[in-house]
């Protein structure tokens, strides 16, 4: 029995039936209730993926602590942070439980005054590096690069109000690059992605694409 349940044909069959059902309902509207229920299951499964993620995270870091691997102290910090944040959130009030106001305030404080500035700060580094790249890397070595530089400057002046204040033409000129050239390119990319998705779906239905089963795809071994 256990061997039968381990067969890879079972998840592939579930995938095929569910995706065909949702696709058929999308185009025909024949089984709205079944589709609604299936999407509801998907949302529940999504929530379980968080439990799985936290379990894997704990298993990995607890093993590191146990083995005293290099920089294991950071694993302790991580586990403590997860616990503190999780507990303060749960005690702060979940669902019908109104919670402890101080715990909610502490949880909000952690999010808004610790996590949020850290995340924003990390992304802001990109801005600084971009400006050094402007200085170090933006060198017109060929005509292609020259065209790219000119378009970059036009778009920078199109976005910032100072551009329009300097010359009104930066508005329509920048919009043309954005709405015609860029949009045309994106349309091509989107069609490519769409066709690629269909190909992946067909491969998954036929059992060639197995990444979602935790295996290597056929041809990738």
């Amino acid at each position: 029995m256990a061997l039968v349940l381990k067969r890879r044909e079972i998840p592939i069959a579930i995938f095929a039936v569910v995706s065909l059902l949702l696709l058929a309902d999308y185009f025909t509207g024949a089984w709205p209730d079944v589709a609604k229920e299936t999407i509801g299951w998907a949302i529940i499964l999504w929530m379980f993926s968080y439990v799985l993620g936290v379990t894997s995270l704990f298993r990995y870091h607890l093993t590191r602590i146990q083995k005293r691997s290099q920089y294991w102290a950071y694993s302790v910090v991580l586990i403590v942070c997860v616990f503190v944040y999780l507990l303060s959130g749960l005690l702060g009030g979940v669902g019908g439980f109104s919670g402890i106001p101080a715990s909610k305030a502490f949880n909000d404080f952690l999010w808004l005054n610790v996590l949020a500035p850290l995340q924003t700060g990390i992304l802001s580094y990109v801005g600084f590096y971009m400006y050094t790249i402007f200085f170090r890397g933006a060198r017109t070595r060929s005509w292609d690069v020259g065209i790219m530089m000119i378009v970059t400057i036009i778009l920078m002046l199109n976005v910032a109000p100072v551009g329009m204040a300097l010359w009104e033409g930066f508005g329509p000129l920048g919009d043309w690059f954005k709405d015609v050239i860029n949009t045309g390119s994106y349309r091509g990319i989107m069609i490519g992605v769409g066709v690629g998705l269909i190909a992946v779906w067909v491969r998954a239905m036929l059992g060639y694409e197995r990444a979602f089963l935790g295996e290597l795809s056929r041809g990738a071994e």
Partner: protein
Amino acid sequence: MGERVALGTFPLTDRLVFLVFIILVAIPILSPIGLPIPVTDATKKSFKLMDSLKSGDILVMCFEQDMGTFYSGAPPDEAGLRHAFTLAKQRGVKVILFGTSSAGCKVYIDAILMDTKPYWEPLRYGEDWVNFGWLPGFETAMAGFARDVQGTCKVDVYGKRVEEIPMMRGIKTLSDVTGIWYSTNTNPDMLPRQWSPLEYKGLKWTICQTLFASVPWIMPYVDKGSITGYVADQRGAGEYEMLLGKLGMGATFMDAQSLGHLYGIALIVMANVHYLYTRSKTSKSKEEK
């Protein structure tokens, strides 16, 4: 563990570039210059769509954002939310809020709600507006909301069941919603895939608030009507605030953006002048040899 990088390890030129950048961005934030912000047709259209809401119309504001892009995404969302609450107060428009990313509801709803308190405070929670917090599942949650609003939004952030929320009575599917404001940074195509006004007859329009870099991504959908309007980034926020008649975060950041972009252009020009000069000097010395 990565290599440790201290500011002192950066070359002097890089540190100078950083310093000038910080000064140029800080000055207009501390003391706004007040450069004019021309309003684009795209933002005007989005403003008109929001302004077309009437008494009893349902507006959904969904936030799919990350904290990293807070200062790009929050200003336009705040302007949109201010507009929505003003319409709720003046005309009786009903506003539904939720996020499809955990950061989206925690930051973009909680933080923006803190800033817009004077706008929602006079309103009746549960009758004029409601906050469902985070709906897990990203695109699946959006698909679920479209087909079964009550089944997807089971409880609000206070744990109140949807059946007990008066304004939610009669809202069964996306066809019962009038307009959508969808805020995202890099996932704009989930909006036309799941919430297209072309598919749901009752849904009159959708507005996508996204990064400036994502605008070309959504333009094919805008051309076909799958997305009705868009508001782009801080620039869109500044424009929206001009139309609202009350300036905020967006307008403040626009001066900083202007100076920052001028500085970037100056660096590009300087780099190229230096490069051409060095190249001509090297080729001359080679010829002499």
